C-alpha cells in the first residue's frame, strides 16, 4: 500500500524534483517507509511506500530490466504469486519478490489486458519512456483512489487531491454542481470530486496520456447480473464458504502481520473466523466502542472475540473524540460527509497502527454483495407493494430499519403512507434509491444553485449499457457499488481513514469470485425478508448464535448532537455569518435557518435528514477552510527518498537509480 503522484507538464520540467518532493510530502502518511520518484522530459511520477510485500527489494519507482517501462504502484495484487508463475513460464524476467514487479511485467506482457487478470486493490501509473506515454489504472471496485487534473498543457495525478497543492499556481475551488450532486446522492459520483477541475479515474478503468491525447477506457464494467446458482442449497452454501475462504487466504498474503476490524456484525465476524483458521499467527482484532449506548456494539464484539479466541482490542469513542478529530478526518476524506462515522475509523486506524499493525482485513462490501442493507428489502417491498394486503404492508414496513426508533411498532402504520408514495418510479432508473435520495433533496437546499441535483446520476444510469434491463434490486445493487461503496465506505471511511495513519485495509468481500458467488446464490435463494440469508447459513455453525440471528445494526456514530454539546472552536465556521458567506456555493440564508434549528432544538427532535444536512454543511465548511482558503498548514514531511531516477535531457543531473 502506498500513495502515488505525478504530472505531465513541460512547464514544470525544470522544477520537477522540488515539485515531486512536495507532492509526495503531502501524501506522506500513505507510505512513510520510503519514497522515490522518476523524472523524464516534462513527465514525473513518484511513490510514497508502505512496505508490506517484499520489504527488501520492492522499492519504487521500479523499472523493467530494459528501463523502458517504469511503475509507481499503490495497492496490493493478491494473486501475484499465481501471475508471477504464469509470467515466468512466458519468459518474463523477475529481479524482486514484489507484487509491483508482477504488475509491471504483466503490463509489458499483456498490455491493458492484464487488468482483467488482477485480483487486487490498486491504482498505478506506468511510464513508457520509448513511446512517451503515461498509463494510469484503477481496480475494479474503486478501492484505491486516483484523482487527476487535465488542463491545457498540464496533466496532474495523485492518490489524494491534496497533493495538487504542490503545483505552482494550483487553486482549489468548490464546484457548485458537483457539490449539489454530492449532497443529493451522499457521495461524489464515480468520476467526480467536489473541487473544480479535479476528476477521478472511475473504477475498472485506465487512462492513457500522450502529449495532448487522452484515452479513458473501461476494462471491466461493474456486473450485477448473473445466472442463478444451478445446484442444491447445500452446494450453494459450500460455494459461498469456499469463495470466501480463498479470498481471506489471498488477503492474508503479507510479509507483515495482518489484523482484523471486528465490528460485532456478521460480516466482520465471518472474516475474523476465517482469519483465525487461516492465519499463521494468533489473530488480533480491533473495534470501536461508543460511550453513547445507542451506538455501542461492544458486547457483540466481545462475544465474537471470545468465541473465536482472538486477541481483541476496543477503542472507546466519546463525543469529544468525534468533535475534536472531525477537521483532521475531513482533511483526509477530501469530500463532504453526511455522517460522522468516518471519524471513529480515523481514530481506530491510529489505534491499530500504535499496536504495530499496518494491514487489516475488514467486512466492507458484504452488504452490497449479499443484499444486506434495508434498502434492498425496501426496494423489494415497494416493487411488490401493489400485490400486498394492508396487513402484509404493515408487517413488512415494521421489519425495516429496526434500529431507528420511528420505524418501531408504534409508528409503523404511519410509515405505510410514506412507502405508498414511493411505490412508483419517478426518477427514471433510480426507483430503488428515491426514498433515500429525498433526504438529499433537503441537503441540496443548502446551495444557491437550485438546478436539478440528480441530473448527473440520471445521466450516469441512462448512459450505462445494460442498466435499464436490470431488475429493481439489481439496479439498487449497482448503484450501491458505484456510489456509496466506492465513494464513501471504501474511500472516505475505509481507505482514506486507514491510510491517514498508514494502515492498509483489505476487503475479502470485494474479491471478484466472492461477488460472483453472491450474485448467483442471491438470485436463487434470496427470499426478500432475511438479509444475507446464504451468508448466515454458510457460517451459522461457526459463530455465536446471537451474532447470526440478531437484527442488522448499521455502523453509526453520534451526529449533530456531538457538535452542539462539544461546541468545538471550528463550529464558528457555521455560526458566524461572515464565515458562511465566504463559501460561495452555499446559500447563507437557508444554511442559517438549518443551523439555528439544530442549535435550538432538542437533539431527539432533529430528524435524520436535518442531521445529515448539518454534517454535510459542517464538513463542507471545513473543506472550504482547509483547501479553498488554505488555512490548514500541512507540515512538510521528511521523506526517506531511496529511489530517484532523472532522465531529463536538459538536466545537469546524472540519470539512474540512487
Amino acid at each position: 500500500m502506498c500513495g502515488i503522484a505525478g504530472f505531465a507538464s513541460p512547464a514544470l520540467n525544470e522544477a520537477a524534483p522540488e515539485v515531486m518532493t512536495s507532492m509526495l510530502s503531502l501524501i506522506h502518511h500513505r507510505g512513510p517507509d520510503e519514497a522515490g520518484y522518476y523524472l523524464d522530459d516534462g513527465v514525473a511520477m513518484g511513490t510514497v511506500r508502505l512496505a508490506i510485500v517484499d520489504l527488501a527489494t520492492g522499492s519504487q519507482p521500479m523499472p523493467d530490466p530494459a528501463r523502458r517501462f517504469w511503475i509507481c504502484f499503490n495497492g496490493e495484487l493478491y494473486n501475484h504469486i499465481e501471475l508471477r508463475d504464469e509470467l515466468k513460464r512466458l519468459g518474463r524476467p523477475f529481479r524482486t519478490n514484489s507484487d509491483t514487479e508482477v504488475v509491471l511485467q504483466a503490463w509489458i506482457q499483456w498490455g491493458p489486458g492484464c487488468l482483467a487478470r488482477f485480483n487486487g486493490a490498486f491504482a498505478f501509473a506506468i511510464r513508457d519512456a520509448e513511446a512517451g506515454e503515461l498509463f494510469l489504472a484503477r481496480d475494479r471496485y474503486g478501492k484505491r483512489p486516483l484523482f487527476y487534473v487535465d488542463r491545457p498543457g498540464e496533466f496532474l495525478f495523485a492518490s489524494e487531491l491534496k497533493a495538487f497543492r504542490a503545483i505552482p499556481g494550483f487553486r482549489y475551488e468548490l464546484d457548485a454542481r458537483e457539490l449539489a450532486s454530492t449532497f443529493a446522492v451522499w457521495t461524489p459520483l464515480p468520476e467526480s470530486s467536489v473541487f473544480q477541475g479535479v476528476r477521478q479515474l472511475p473504477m475498472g478503468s485506465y487512462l492513457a496520456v500522450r502529449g495532448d491525447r487522452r484515452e479513458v477506457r473501461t476494462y471491466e464494467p461493474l456486473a450485477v447480473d448473473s445466472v442463478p446458482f444451478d445446484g442444491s442449497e447445500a452446494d450453494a452454501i459450500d460455494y459461498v464458504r469456499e469463495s470466501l475462504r480463498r479470498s481471506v487466504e489471498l488477503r492474508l498474503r503479507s510479509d507483515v502481520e495482518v489484523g482484523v476490524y471486528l465490528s460485532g456484525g456478521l460480516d466482520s465476524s465471518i472474516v475474523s473466523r476465517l482469519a483465525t483458521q487461516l492465519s499463521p499467527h494468533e489473530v488480533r482484532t480491533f473495534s470501536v466502542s461508543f460511550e453513547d449506548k445507542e451506538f455501542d456494539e461492544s458486547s457483540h464484539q466481545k462475544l465474537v472475540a471470545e468465541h473465536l479466541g482472538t486477541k481483541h482490542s476496543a477503542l472507546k469513542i466519546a463525543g469529544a473524540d468525534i468533535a475534536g478529530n472531525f477537521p483532521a478526518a475531513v482533511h483526509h476524506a477530501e469530500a463532504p460527509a453526511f455522517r460522522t462515522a468516518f471519524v471513529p475509523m480515523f481514530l481506530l486506524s491510529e489505534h491499530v497502527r500504535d499496536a504495530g499493525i499496518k494491514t487489516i482485513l475488514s467486512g466492507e462490501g458484504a452488504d452490497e454483495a449479499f443484499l444486506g442493507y434495508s434498502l434492498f428489502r425496501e426496494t423489494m417491498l415497494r416493487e411488490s407493494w401493489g400485490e400486498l394486503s394492508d396487513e402484509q404492508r404493515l408487517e413488512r414496513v415494521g421489519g425495516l430499519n429496526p434500529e431507528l426508533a420511528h420505524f418501531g411498532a408504534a409508528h409503523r402504520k404511519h410509515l405505510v403512507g410514506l412507502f405508498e408514495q414511493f411505490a412508483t418510479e419517478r426518477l427514471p432508473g433510480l426507483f430503488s434509491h428515491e426514498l433515500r435520495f429525498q433526504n438529499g433533496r433537503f441537503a441540496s437546499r443548502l446551495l444557491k444553485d437550485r438546478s436539478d441535483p440528480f441530473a448527473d446520476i440520471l445521466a450516469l444510469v441512462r448512459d450505462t449499457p445494460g442498466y435499464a434491463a436490470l431488475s429493481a434490486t439489481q439496479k439498487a445493487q449497482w448503484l450501491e457499488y458505484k456510489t456509496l461503496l466506492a465513494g464513501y465506505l471504501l474511500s472516505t471511511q475505509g481507505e482514506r481513514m486507514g491510510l491517514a495513519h498508514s494502515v492498509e485495509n483489505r476487503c475479502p468481500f470485494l474479491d471478484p469470485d466472492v461477488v460472483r458467488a453472491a450474485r448467483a446464490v442471491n438470485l436463487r435463494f434470496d427470499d426478500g425478508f432475511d438479509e444475507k440469508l446464504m451468508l448466515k447459513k454458510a457460517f451459522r455453525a461457526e459463530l455465536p448464535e446471537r451474532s447470526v440471528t440478531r437484527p442488522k445494526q448499521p455502523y453509526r456514530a453520534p451526529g449533530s448532537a456531538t457538535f452542539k454539546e462539544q461546541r468545538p472552536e471550528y463550529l464558528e465556521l457555521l455560526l458566524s455569518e461572515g464565515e458562511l458567506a465566504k463559501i460561495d456555493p452555499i446559500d447563507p440564508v437557508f444554511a442559517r435557518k438549518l443551523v439555528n434549528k439544530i442549535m435550538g432544538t432538542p437533539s431527539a427532535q432533529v430528524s435524520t435528514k436535518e442531521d445529515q444536512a448539518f454534517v454535510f454543511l459542517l464538513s463542507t465548511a471545513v473543506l472550504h477552510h482547509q483547501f479553498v482558503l488554505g488555512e490548514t498548514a500541512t507540515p512538510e514531511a521528511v521523506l526517506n527518498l531511496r529511489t530517484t531516477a532523472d532522465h531529463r535531457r536538459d538536466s545537469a543531473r546524472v540519470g539512474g537509480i540512487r
Partner: protein
Amino acid sequence: MERTQQIKQFIEEQFLVEFGTDVTAQDDLFKTGVIDSFGYIQLMKFLEEEFALQIDDEDILTNVLVSLEAIDGFVASKLVGTR
C-alpha cells in the same frame, strides 16, 4: 389561529420551508423532499395532539397525506366525524 394556518405553520417551522416560495399547498411534500420518515411521524403526532384526533390504521391506509391541501382536508373530515 385557523386550522389550515396552524398546519401550515407547523410544516414551515418544522421542515424549514415556506409555502409560496419553496413549495405550494398542492405540492407532494414527500416528493419535494420536505418530509422524510422521521418528519412524517412528527407530523402525524402533531395532528393527533393539536386537533385531538385518533388516526387509525384505516385512515392511513385509505388516505394519502402528501400535500398541505390533502393533510388539511383529512383533518377537516376527521373533525367533522368526531363532532
